[in-house]
């Protein structure tokens, strides 16, 4: 997934997964045909995504929202930096990292000088694992064949494939024996994720075709899922199913107190997203959100957002620890106080009518920044 610099700027061209219609033909004022063509294209075009993105919601009391398709994962990342790879720091890169780690990518393996002793060892072990796995499969097939009374020719073909696999494996082993020497001479042994020896456990990463399985899904925060359902029609789920799913396993009927937190979290998320911020989880800094001006590849987050009910008061130690963490990371702490403007009953009534816009517009954002102030530094 190496990206050239030109690709890099193209990749994050759109700030949201809903794109504007930006491929309309030029409109030439004195040429009516261009008008017709333009109108035709305009009518035919749509802002909608071609295929809505599929989400799986797993878990019970703590639902988690997953996107598993590789292309769709990437799409959500590239178009507004939504979601987090479960086995990555942010962008879901686990598979490519693992491929690199296990040298499954031949283009990397071919570069002999890059190989380290440990990598060679790793790959030999891995190939042994692969071979064992393949032999196991062939043996199973053979067993099946015999049980179902297959022909001698078929059985012969299978055995031949097994022998061939063994030959390949042996050839690779001797090839790597040579590489061993290269690597030993260079004696480069590095630490880090990519240099970890292949472990027995890695065998479970390989699928029937010898490829690395995708174990990673892109996980969306509940508020992201709401945004991509309610605000932008991107996910293949409707708001009330999503909302119900997020509150399933609450005991009995949904009560206001059970939805309050999600309401204020969403209103706050929508507020910042809708003014152009890239809003990502702030858990690393112990706050709710981080605001990036464009997105993580472009600059650091400047703001930490803590969302709270407007009537909230906490022990001072709570504020002071947040402020220290944000201050330490040189980010500005914003306390986002969300105020409900209508009664709980009215919110529930709107919920019954599935009037989500009605609900979300009934909360008001009030913000303050909170900064430690040092007298000695503010004297002139």
């Amino acid at each position, binding site marked *: 997934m190496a990206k050239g610099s030109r690709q890099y700027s193209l990749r994050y061209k759109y700030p949201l997964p809903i794109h504007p219609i930006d491929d309309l033909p030029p409109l030439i004022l004195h040429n009516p045909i261009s008008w017709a063509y333009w109108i035709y294209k305009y009518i035919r075009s749509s802002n909608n995504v071609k295929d809505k993105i599929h989400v799986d919601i*797993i*878990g*019970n*009391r*703590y*639902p*988690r*929202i997953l996107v598993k398709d590789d292309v769709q994962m990437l799409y959500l990342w590239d178009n507004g930096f939504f*979601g*987090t*790879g*479960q*086995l*990555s720091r942010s962008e879901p890169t*686990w598979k490519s990292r*693992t491929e690199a780690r296990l040298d499954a990518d031949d283009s990397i393996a071919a570069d002999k000088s890059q190989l380290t002793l440990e990598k060679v060892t790793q790959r030999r072990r891995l190939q042994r694992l692969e071979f064992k796995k393949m032999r196991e499969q062939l043996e199973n097939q053979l067993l099946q064949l015999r049980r179902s009374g297959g022909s001698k020719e078929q059985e012969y073909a299978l055995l031949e494939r097994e022998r061939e696999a063994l030959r390949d494996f042996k050839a690779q082993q001797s090839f790597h024996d040579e590489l061993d020497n290269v690597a030993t001479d260079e004696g480069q042994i590095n630490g880090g*994720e990519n240099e*970890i020896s292949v*472990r*027995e*456990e890695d065998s479970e*990463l390989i699928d029937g075709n010898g490829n690395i399985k995708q*174990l990673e899904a*892109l*996980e*969306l*925060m*509940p*508020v992201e899922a709401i945004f991509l359902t309610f605000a932008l029609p991107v996910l293949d789920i409707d708001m009330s199913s999503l909302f119900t799913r*997020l509150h399933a*396993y609450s005991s009995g009927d949904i009560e206001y107190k059970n939805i309050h*937190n*999600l309401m204020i*979290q969403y209103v706050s998320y929508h507020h910042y997203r809708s003014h152009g911020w890239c809003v990502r*989880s702030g*858990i*690393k800094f112990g706050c*709710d959100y981080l605001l990036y001006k464009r997105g993580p590849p472009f600059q650091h987050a400047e703001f930490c957002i803590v969302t709270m009910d407007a009537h909230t008061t906490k022990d001072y130690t709570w504020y002071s620890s947040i402020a220290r963490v944000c201050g330490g990371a040189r980010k500005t702490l914003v306390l986002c106080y969300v105020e409900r403007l209508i009664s709980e009953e009215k919110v529930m009534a709107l919920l019954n009518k599935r009037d989500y816009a009605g609900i979300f517009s009934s909360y008001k954002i009030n913000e303050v920044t909170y900064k430690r102030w040092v007298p000695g530094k503010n004297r002139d």
Partner: protein
Amino acid sequence: MSAVYNRSEIEELVRNNLLQFHLWTEVTVATETLSWKESNIRLLTGRPPHKLSNDDEDVMTEYVLPVEMSQYKTSYLTLEFLDKIFDNLCPENTKRLTLAIINDDGTTVFYFVYKGIHKPKKN
């Protein structure tokens, strides 16, 4: 008669995370269970690829407790719960428990929990 919440999904998630993200080995779900508020709690055990603390003598087997955390739901991690985990699921004289906090933003983060008062690392 209340439902018993299934924790195998998060056990699997933490197992994958330790095994395939942090490259631990010998990661398994322990057999001992603790029945706690409609859930059966099990720990994971495993070995990290290197020492996790300078104060450790060597790589040691870690006991990992997966707990969930959400943007909009309160946590269930009480002091009583932690005491029960130490008392029932950890071998005697276990130095520490590793808390795996599974957040609903896709991240899993790990913290050491020592029972009682513990000194910080010297270095």
